[in-house]
């Protein structure tokens, strides 16, 4: 069975991601370690997800291929920036999102944003994909291509089952 973090990392590499900003989630720890150790990826841990949207926008204007790695709780912190920076100017962004608050979630505080994550993305017309582990590398790569071609943000949502490798 493929390691879920490795599957996403391989997708990022195939997509040519060379700049990443992140706010951690317990489910992202292995992935953040892989990204942090990669000499070909500039990785900035940021203080708030919205800051990451700004950094990724600037990096893209400078010719980099950025990704934002975060928990779905951080989507709420990004909404104005996604709209009035990325949508307004046509700036692509790949978002790799640990999707908490769904089936199997032990922490009640994660549930409200967990349930709202897909509806919020739908309301913003941001395409989102929820791959199983075996297809994750391909989906991450094609999500980056879609973001670049449409010059819009695109999200990959990775729920609790995904991180269990099921």
């Amino acid at each position, binding site marked *: 069975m493929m390691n879920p973090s490795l599957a996403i990392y391989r997708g990022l590499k195939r997509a040519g991601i060379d*700049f990443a900003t992140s706010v951690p989630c317990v489910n992202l720890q292995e992935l953040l370690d892989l990204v942090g150790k990669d000499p070909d990826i*500039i990785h*900035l841990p*940021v*203080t*708030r997800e*919205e*800051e*990451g*949207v*700004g*950094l*990724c*926008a*600037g*990096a*893209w*204007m*400078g*010719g*980099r291929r*950025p990704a934002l790695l975060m928990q779905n709780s951080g989507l709420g912190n990004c909404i*104005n*920036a996604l*709209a*009035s*920076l990325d949508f*307004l*100017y*046509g*700036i692509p962004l790949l978002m790799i999102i640990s999707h908490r608050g769904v089936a199997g979630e032990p922490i009640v505080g994660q549930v409200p944003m967990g349930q709202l994550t897909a509806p919020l993305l739908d309301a913003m017309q941001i395409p989102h994909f929820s791959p199983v582990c075996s297809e994750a590398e391909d989906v991450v790569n094609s999500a980056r291509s879609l973001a670049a071609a449409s010059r819009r943000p695109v999200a990959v949502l990775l729920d609790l089952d995904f991180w269990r490798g099921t």
Partner: protein
Amino acid sequence: MRRMEAIALAAEAAQAQDALLISNIGFPSRELCAAKDRPENFYMLGSMGLASSIGLGLALGLPARKVIVLDGDGSVLMNLGTLATIAHYAPENYLLVILDNCCYGSTGSQPTCTHLGTDLSAIALAAGVRVVKKVDELGDLQLALTGQGVVVAKVDPGNADVPIINLAPEEIIERFMRSARPAPPS
């Protein structure tokens, strides 16, 4: 000093250093466009608070190019974490200029906490930024504009009488990116 004077000086310094200039939402972008419009200016029309972050991403992506950010006190207060990130990750080609007029100048000059004494240069130092300058005269600002790190420039409240920017967002970013990135060899 008046903010428009500080912005005009920054625009001259940016041109002299072939620097890219990220300019904060509202009147600062309008004043910059009126003072010296260049393709190398990125005028923010939204995402208040993120000028310093956009500029940092750009500076990391283009390490050979100087990047100057013109930000405001209200906007930096909205994204204070940026100072910690700048402290630890900003490269030498990055300069953040905070034009501190102690108010939200584009929305009716409501006071910010810098009006009550919050010291953004002290916060930047405490966040770990190594080079922090505090200036209140044009001559000192001119000198600081050739450097790196963070500059807090005290400016008077009030906006210049300048028109709105007559460029679509697509034009702003396309011409900016063409000027930011040299054409690939043919």
